[in-house]
């Protein structure tokens, strides 16, 4: 259904969802818009906006009248689907026998305000962990199945965004339970599922008018028009495969610190390590999944020999994975154009600039 509600109805929607879910939403903390469990709509960073550029980030008061004038949070929702560190198996040893206790993540989250890029990011992770994997991940599935998604149309992009290049629209077309588009005077609500409809029906709503739907389309068009960055994906995987031995990787390798910042803020980077946490005296051991990164020096070590010794080769692995290997593995790109890695790279490495350089090789 497509309806409109007064802006004041947002609080009611929030509270209705809160009754059934633990809400995770953008919050402003120590000058950065992050994500956190929240109790009240007031905690969202209404009235603020981000200024982002290569290796630059600042939150400012916005100079428009909109609630959703901030953009996406500085890090993606993935940590709520797969926590950065969690015990997935508890093992107890008794009389030479082992007993296993399977731990599950019992969370019923509602993500409140997922932008187009992050929504697409979740879709990409769905393919990695579930849909295109013959050994689907039960931990991911558990949280994912319970997940409720409220999406929001972006009114304006940040200067690092290039979502449209990666096939992502500022006004999402699918994947949400409810989509909110903030118009000048009212909110346009679109539902994607029955679960979403159930909540919207409890609001004071009326059918959306033709001109309101038009207005929402115009917002999207304007947003796309204001995108400052782009990445041409046309034939890019083939170009990358052709240039796998290019010296450009060494040049980037000289700048990259292998700090792993890009992999942490990326909504699609999924790599993890498994480590053991032991309590020897009690015969207890926990198996723990913990985020890892292809930039870490021991990531690809075989018999103490690191296959990717140089930082250049690690950057190449990351970039080629996003823009070439991923296409072969999952039939889509591993980048959704959120631009976060551009903002948070301390070496000012910009994936869109590198694309242009690679094309000129």
């Amino acid at each position: 259904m497509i309806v409109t509600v007064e802006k004041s109805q947002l609080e009611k929607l929030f509270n209705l969802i809160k009754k059934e879910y633990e809400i995770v939403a953008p919050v402003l903390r120590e000058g950065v818009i992050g994500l956190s469990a929240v109790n009240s709509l007031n905690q969202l960073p209404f009235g603020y906006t981000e200024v982002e550029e290569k290796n630059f980030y600042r939150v400012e008061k916005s100079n428009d009248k909109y609630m959703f004038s901030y953009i996406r949070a500085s890090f993606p929702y993935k940590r709520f689907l797969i926590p950065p560190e969690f015990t997935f198996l508890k093992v107890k040893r008794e009389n030479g026998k082992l007993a296993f206790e399977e731990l599950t993540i019992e969370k019923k989250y509602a993500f409140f305000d997922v932008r187009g890029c992050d929504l697409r990011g979740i879709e990409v992770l769905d393919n990695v962990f579930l849909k295109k994997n013959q050994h689907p991940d039960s931990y991911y599935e558990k949280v994912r199945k319970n997940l409720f998604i409220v999406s929001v149309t972006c009114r304006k992009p940040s200067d690092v965004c290039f979502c449209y290049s990666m096939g992502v629209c500022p006004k999402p077309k699918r994947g949400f339970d409810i989509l909110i588009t903030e118009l000048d005077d009212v909110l346009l609500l679109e539902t994607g599922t029955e679960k979403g409809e159930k909540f919207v029906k409890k609001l004071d709503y009326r059918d959306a008018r033709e001109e309101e739907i038009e207005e929402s389309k115009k917002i999207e068009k304007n947003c796309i028009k204001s995108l400052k960055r782009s990445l041409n994906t046309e034939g890019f995987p083939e170009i990358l495969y052709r240039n796998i031995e290019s010296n450009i990787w060494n040049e980037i390798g000289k700048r990259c610190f292998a700090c792993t910042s890009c992999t942490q803020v990326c909504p699609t980077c999924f790599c993890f390590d498994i480590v053991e946490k032991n309590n020897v005296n009690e015969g207890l051991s926990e198996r723990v999944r913990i985020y890892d990164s292809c930039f870490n020096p021991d990531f690809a070590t075989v018999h103490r020999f690191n296959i990717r010794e140089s930082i250049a080769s690690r950057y190449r692995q990351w970039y080629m994975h996003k823009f070439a290997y991923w296409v072969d593995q999952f039939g889509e790109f591993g980048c959704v154009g959120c631009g976060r890695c551009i903002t948070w790279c301390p070496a000012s490495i910009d994936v869109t600039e590198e694309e242009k350089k690679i094309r000129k090789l």
Partner: protein
Amino acid sequence: MVENPYLLKEAEIVEKIKETTDTYTFRIKCSDSFKPGQYNMIYYFGIGEAPISIAGFDGEILEHTIRAAGDVTSHIDSLKEGDLLYYRGSYGNFWDLEIAKGKSLVLVSGGLGFAAIKWVMEEAIKRKDEFSSVISLYGSKNYDSLLYTYHYEMWYREIDFKITLDNPDPRWKGDVGLITELIRKTKLNKDSIVFMCGPDPMVKFSVIELEKKGITPDRIYVSMERHMKCSVGTCGHCMFGPFFVCKDGPIFRYSEIREFFERKEV
């Protein structure tokens, strides 16, 4: 609901055979299903898991040959007969003998890579008549690092089984030299099908020798080793070009991986 891919199964070690100073073969009672070329993830309490090739299975007894290379493997090697072994699997693709039907099957292995070849070799012996010939070439660093010596007599009898040692030894009367030299010395048909497992450099140079004999890379299948943590295509550690070695492999047709395999740091 999908099944938890990390749950471990329990099986009893019925026999522990000392292969070399640091390598043991475990015979494990087990009623699972496996295919030659696949591997299991073997767990040791409090230490972790390691991917280990399935070195044999007859429907009741599973075999694993494990070298104490580090933390996990040295702990597993400390297990005794009667102890329980915890594993999950099987994982990965398998050696498909159908491809070699009617042709000459050539098995090439180096070092511990022989563990990944042993079972398919035993199967090939059973089905000997289906191939025009079965040749197995195995390279070992030293006399003391030879694996499965107790089977040699039978293998010599059944197929064209050849061993070469990298280093000469007074106790050794057979071939000495690298596996590449053994390949060079052996008469091989152009239309042979090759199954190979060994360290990366061995594979690379063996392919060169095989090509000199007219065996093209599309007839060569290679089992690869990479760092593995999850074995189910989600941790990212085993990534190799566009492939996940854990689930797309560990066996690859060489013509399909050559462009990545022969490049540094992929």
